[in-house]
C-alpha cells in the first residue's frame, strides 16, 4: 500500500510523505514502550515496597512526555503532508490527463475520472491523517508490547506471539468477506444510481407515455433490488464482522487464563501477573480498533489503485525534436486505424487537401468521416500510414505546435460554466473585445449576444445547458475562429442547427476556405456543392473523390447519394394524405 501511495505521489513528494509515515510508525512503537513501562511501575506499586515504583514512574513520565511530543509532531506533520498530497495529486492527475489521447476518454472512463478526482484524492489525502495512524497502532504497538513482554515472562510472551498470526489471519479473512459484500452492494447501488439518472433524464419520454406511476417503473425494480440486496448482504456480513472482534476477545481471555494458571502454579508473582495483565489489555485495545480501519484501508487502497491506473495510462509519444509544418497542406496517406483491434474504421484512406480549398467529407454514417478529423487533430495515432500536415507527419510535429495549426468545431459542443465571452476566449485568453466582435460576426454569435439580456456576460450554465443547441454551436464556431489556425475542421452535424445557422455555416466555411485549408463533414447539399473537392467515404475507404462536377458526371456512389438526399428534401409534412411525392421511390 505504501509503495502504491508513494508511486501515486510522484518522485518530488516521496521524502515528506516518507518522513510523515516513519514518524507515525515511530510514535506507535513508542506507545508500545509506554505501555510496557506500566509493567514495572505497577509491579513495584503492588509489591511489598511501593516506593520501588518511583524510579520506574520517572521513566514512565519521561517516556510519556517523549511520546506526547513525538505524537504531536507527527500529527502536525500529517496534516501538512495531507494538504500537499491533495495539491500534488490533483496536479499530477490534471497534467497527466491533458497528455492522454482523447481516444482514452470513453464514456465509462469519464464517470470513473470524476470519482478519482474527487473521492479518490480526498481519501488519499486523509491517508496519513486518518487511515495510517490507527493501522500503525494496531500493528506496531502490539509487536513492541510483545517484545517487551519477553523481558518479563517468556511463557506469556510466547503465547502472545503465537496469537498474533492467528489474529492477522482472521482479520484478513473477515476483511475479505466484508470487502466482497461491500463490492456486491456497490454493484446494486450503482445500478440503482444509474436508473435514477435514467429516470430523471427520460422524464419527458416517461411522462409523455404515461409511465411515471412509480410502482411499475424500472427504477422501482432497481430500488427494490438494492433494498433486497443490501438486506441479504448485511446478514451475510455480520458474522464476518463479528468474527474478528470475537477472536480478539477470546485471545484476551485465554491469555488472562494462562496468567492466572501460571500464578496459581506459583511460577508468577501476583504483582507481576497483574501488571502483565494490564499490559495485555492495553495491547489488545488497538487490535480491536483495527477492525474499524479495515474498510477505510480497503477503500484507500482501491482508490490508490485507480489513481495509479490513470497515471499509468500512456500519453501519445511526443517527438524528441519537433519539426514545424511547412504550410497548411493536409495529406492522408494510406491511413489505417481501428478503435478496437480487428474492426478497422479506416482501411487505407488517402486524399490531399490543399490550402485555400474546401474539402467536403461525405458518405453514410459509420463511413469514417469523424475519425478522419480526429486523426488530423491527433486525438489518436494511426495504426499504419501517415497523416501529414505541411508535409510533416503529425507525430513529428509535437502536440502543442499541431494544436496551433488545426482548429476543430466539435460535434458535441461543451461549454464551461462561465460567460459566453470566457468560453470564446478559451481559444485565445488575451483576445480583445474587437477580436470577439469580429469572430462573433462571422459565426453568427453576434445575434445571440445581442438577444441575451446580459450579452457577452451571459453565463452559460453547467455544460452550457442554459443556451440552446444552436446558440452553443455558434459559440463553438466563434471559439474555433478566434484560434485563427490555418487548418479548420467543421462538423456540420448538429441536431439543433436552424435554417439560418446552417446557411451561415456554409458561408463561413466557404469564406474561410479562401485562405485556409478547410475540411467539412458535410451534410448540407449546399456545402457539398460549394466544395472544391469531395471525398466520399464508405466503410473506411475512399469510394470516390474529385470535384462535385466530376463526381456527378461519374454517376457513381456520390451521385446516387445526392439523389437520395433530394428525395429526402422533397418530403413535405402536410395534414393531407400522402401524395405521390412523399412516398418512397424504389
Amino acid at each position: 500500500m505504501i509503495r502504491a501511495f508513494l508511486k501515486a505521489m510522484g518522485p518530488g513528494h516521496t521524502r515528506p510523505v516518507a518522513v510523515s509515515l516513519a514518524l507515525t510508525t515511530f510514535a506507535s512503537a513508542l506507545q508500545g514502550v509506554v505501555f510496557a513501562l506500566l509493567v514495572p511501575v505497577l509491579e513495584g506499586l503492588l509489591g511489598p515496597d511501593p516506593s520501588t515504583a518511583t524510579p520506574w514512574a520517572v521513566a514512565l513520565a519521561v517516556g510519556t512526555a517523549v511520546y506526547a511530543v513525538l505524537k504531536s509532531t507527527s500529527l502536525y506533520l500529517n496534516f501538512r503532508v495531507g494538504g500537499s498530497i491533495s495539491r500534488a495529486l490533483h496536479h499530477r492527475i490534471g497534467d497527466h490527463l491533458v497528455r492522454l489521447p482523447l481516444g482514452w476518454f470513453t464514456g465509462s472512463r469519464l464517470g470513473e475520472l470524476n470519482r478519482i478526482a474527487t473521492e479518490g484524492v480526498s481519501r488519499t489525502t486523509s491517508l496519513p491523517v486518518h487511515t495510517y495512524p490507527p493501522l500503525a497502532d494496531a500493528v506496531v504497538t502490539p509487536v513492541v508490547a510483545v517484545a517487551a513482554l519477553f523481558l518479563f515472562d517468556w511463557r506469556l510472551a510466547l503465547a502472545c506471539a503465537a496469537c498474533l498470526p492467528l489474529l492477522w489471519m482472521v482479520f484478513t479473512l473477515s476483511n475479505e468477506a466484508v470487502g466482497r459484500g461491500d463490492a456486491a452492494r456497490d454493484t446494486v447501488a450503482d445500478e440503482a444510481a444509474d436508473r435514477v439518472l435514467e429516470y430523471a433524464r427520460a422524464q419527458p419520454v416517461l411522462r409523455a407515455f404515461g409511465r411515471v406511476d412509480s410502482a411499475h417503473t424500472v427504477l422501482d425494480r432497481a430500488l427494490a433490488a438494492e433494498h433486497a440486496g443490501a438486506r441479504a448482504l448485511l446478514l451475510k456480513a455480520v458474522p464476518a464482522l463479528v468474527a474478528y472482534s470475537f477472536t480478539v476477545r477470546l485471545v484476551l481471555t485465554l491469555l488472562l487464563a494462562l496468567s492466572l494458571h501460571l500464578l496459581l502454579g506459583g511460577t508468577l508473582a501476583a504483582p507481576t501477573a497483574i501488571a502483565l495483565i494490564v499490559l495485555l489489555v492495553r495491547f489488545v485495545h488497538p487490535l480491536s480498533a483495527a477492525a474499524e480501519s479495515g474498510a477505510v484501508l480497503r477503500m484507500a487502497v482501491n482508490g490508490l489503485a485507480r489513481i495509479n491506473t490513470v497515471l499509468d495510462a500512456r500519453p501519445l509519444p511526443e517527438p524528441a525534436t519537433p519539426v514545424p509544418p511547412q504550410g497548411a497542406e493536409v495529406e492522408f496517406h494510406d491511413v489505417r486505424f481501428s478503435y478496437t483491434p480487428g474492426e478497422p474504421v479506416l482501411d487505407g484512406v488517402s486524399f490531399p487537401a490543399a490550402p485555400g480549398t474546401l474539402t467536403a467529407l461525405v458518405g453514410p454514417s459509420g463511413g469514417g468521416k469523424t475519425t478522419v478529423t480526429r486523426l488530423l487533430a491527433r486525438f489518436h495515432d494511426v495504426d499504419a500510414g501517415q497523416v501529414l500536415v505541411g508535409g510533416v507527419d503529425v507525430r513529428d510535429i509535437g502536440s502543442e505546435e499541431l494544436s496551433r495549426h488545426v482548429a476543430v468545431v466539435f460535434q458535441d459542443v461543451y461549454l464551461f460554466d462561465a460567460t459566453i465571452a470566457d468560453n470564446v476566449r478559451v481559444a485565445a485568453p488575451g483576445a480583445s473585445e474587437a477580436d470577439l466582435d469580429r469572430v462573433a460576426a462571422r459565426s453568427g454569435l453576434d445575434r445571440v449576444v445581442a438577444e441575451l439580456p446580459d450579452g457577452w456576460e451571459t453565463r452559460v450554465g453547467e455544460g452550457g445547458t442554459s443556451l440552446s443547441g444552436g446558440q452553443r454551436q455558434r459559440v463553438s464556431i466563434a471559439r474555433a475562429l478566434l484560434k485563427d489556425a490555418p487548418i479548420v475542421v467543421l462538423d456540420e452535424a448538429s441536431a439543433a442547427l436552424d435554417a439560418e445557422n446552417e446557411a451561415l455555416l456554409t458561408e463561413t466555411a466557404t469564406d474561410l476556405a479562401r485562405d485556409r485549408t478547410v475540411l467539412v463533414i458535410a451534410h448540407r447539399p449546399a456545402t457539398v456543392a460549394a466544395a472544391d473537392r469531395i471525398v466520399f467515404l464508405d466503410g473506411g475507404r475512399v469510394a470516390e473523390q474529385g470535384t462535385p462536377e466530376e463526381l456527378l458526371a461519374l454517376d457513381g456512389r456520390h451521385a446516387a447519394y445526392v439523389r437520395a438526399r433530394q428525395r429526402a428534401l422533397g418530403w413535405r409534412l402536410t395534414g393531407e394524405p400522402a401524395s405521390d411525392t412523399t412516398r418512397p421511390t424504389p
Partner: protein
Amino acid sequence: MTQDTASTTGKTPQADTPAGKRSPSPLSVLLEPVRGRVASAAALQGLAGVLGLVPLVCVAELADTLLEPGPPDRALLWTLVGLALAGAVAALTAGAASTVVGHLADNDMQLSVRRSLAAHLGRVPLGWFSGRGSGRAKKALHDDVAEVHSLIAHTLPDLAAVVAVPVAALAYLVSVDWRLALVAVALVVGGVFLFARAMAGGMAKFAEYTRAMNDINASAVEFVQGIQVVKHFGGHRRAHARFLDAADAFADFFVAWSRATTPVTVASFLLLSAPMTAALSVLAGVGLVAAGWSEPASVVAFALLAPALCAPMNVIGSRVQQIQAAKAAASRVADLLAEPPLPEGSGGAPRDARVVFDGVRFSYSADRRDAAREALRGVDLVLEPGTVTALVGSSGAGKSTLATLLARFHDPVEGTVSVGGADLRTLPTGTLYRTVGFVFQDVRLLRESVADNIALGRPGATREEIEDAARAARIHERILRLPRGYDTVVTEEAALSGGEAQRVSIARAILADPSVLVLDEATASVDPAAEADIQDALSDLARGRTVLVIAHRLATVTGADRIAVMEDGRIVESGTHEELLGRGRRYADLWSAQHGSGGRQGEEQ
C-alpha cells in the same frame, strides 16, 4: 430538452414558510417511520458498550482479590475469568444486534424515501429537469439518502455508546477510589474543553471546507467533461487552470485550517488518548499511594478503565460532523420534496383534438415579471384538428418553449393552453398524455429491450402490434438484425445510431397513437438515406393527427397547413408558405437566407 432562452429555475420562496407553523426538521421527518428501530439500535449499542466494560471490571476485581492477603479464592478467580468472557460475548452479541437492527431500519428508510422522491419527481414540472435537474435528482435520491444511512446505521448508535460507556466507567471508578476518579475526570474535562475550542472555530470552517471541496468537484467534473476542448485549445496548462486553481485553493485552505486548529486538536487528542490516560492515571496513582491516600490495588482499575472513560470523547468530533452532513443531506431531500408539483387536474376528457393557445405568456426567470427574460410574450394560436402547423423562426425565438407548454413541461404564467376545450391544467396527467404525444429532438431510449422501449406508451401491446409500429417507423428490419432482435437491451447489448434511435421513438409514438402530436424536427445529424426513412415514417405518423412541428428547415414544412413565424416570444406572422412568401416579410427573409442568394439551389428540386 434544450431551452430557447436562458433558464434557471429559481428556488421557490414558499418552500421556506410552510403554512406559518414551525415544521419539524427535515431530518426528523425522514427518521420518523423508523424512529423506534433506530432507538432500539442505539440502546443495543449503548448496552454493548457497557457490557464491553465487564471484562475490564473483572480483571480489576481479579487484581483486587489476588492482592488480598492470604491464599486466593480459586473459585472466585476462575468465575471472574468466565464472567469476563461472558461479558465480552454478550457485548459482541448486543453490538451485532444493534448493527442488524440499525441497518435494516436504514435500509427500509432508504427505500421508502427513494420511492417517495421518485413519485414526487414524476409530478414536478418537467422544466425542473432542464439544466442540472437530473444531477440534483441523482444526488438527492442516491447520494443524500446514503448520507443519512451513516447517521442511522452508525452515528446514532455510536453516540449512545459514547455517552453510556464513560458514565458507566466513571460510576465504577468512583466506587473504587474517588480521589483517583477526580484525576480521570480532570483529564476528560481538560480534553473536552480543548476539543470544544477546536470545534468552535472548526464548525464555521467546516462549511468553508465543504465549499472548497464542492469547488473541486465541480471543476473536476467540468474538466473531465470538457477534456476535448481543454486538449484542443489547451496551450496545455491554461484551460485546466480552473481545476488546478480549485485544487490549490483547497490545499491552501486545508493547510491554513489545520495550522490554525491543529495545536488545540492535537492537544485534546493526546490528552484523551489511551497511552496518555493510562500513564497519567498510573503516575497520579503512584503519587496518591505514596501520600497514603490510595490503595495500590485501585491504581490497577484506573490503568484499565481510565482510557475507556476518555477514549469515546475523541470520536465526538467526527460524529458531530456526520450529523451535520446528514442534516444537510436531509434538507436537500426535503427541498426536493417541497418542490411544488404541477397541480393534478380532475376534469373530463377533451372533446376533440383542437388546440388553442390563448394569450400565453411565459418566463423561465424566477421573477415572472422580468420582461427582458420573458420567453413568450402573448401567443395566440389555434391548431385545427387534423392539420399540420409549423413553428419557424430563429434560434431563441420561443419555438421550443411554446411546444413544451403543450406538453405541460411548464404551466404558462398568463393565458391558457387548451385541448378540445379543456385547459391542460384541468386534465388528469394520464388523459393529457394519452391525448398529446411527442417525438423529441433529443431521443431517450431506456436501458430496456427494444420491444419494451417501443411499448412504452402501451405496456400491454402484443408483439405483433409492436412489430407493426416498428415496420411503420422503418426500423423493423434493423431490429431483426440486432443480436437478440426485439429482446435486445438497448445500450447494453447494442448501441443504436442517432437515426435508428429516432425511428424507435417514432415507433413508440405510432403505437401510443395520440390525437395531438408535437414533433421536433431535427434530422440534421443523420445521413441522407436514414433521413429519408425517418421522414417517410414521420409522414405516416402525422397523417390524420393535429400536428405541431418545430421546423428548423423551411423546406420541410412548405406543405404545412399553416406556418407560424416566431420572433422574440411572439408570433409575428402566419399563413401558408405561398401567402407568407407573397407578403415579403420575416418569413420571406428566412426563406431567402436559407435558399436565396444564388448558387445554393442544390437543395431545391
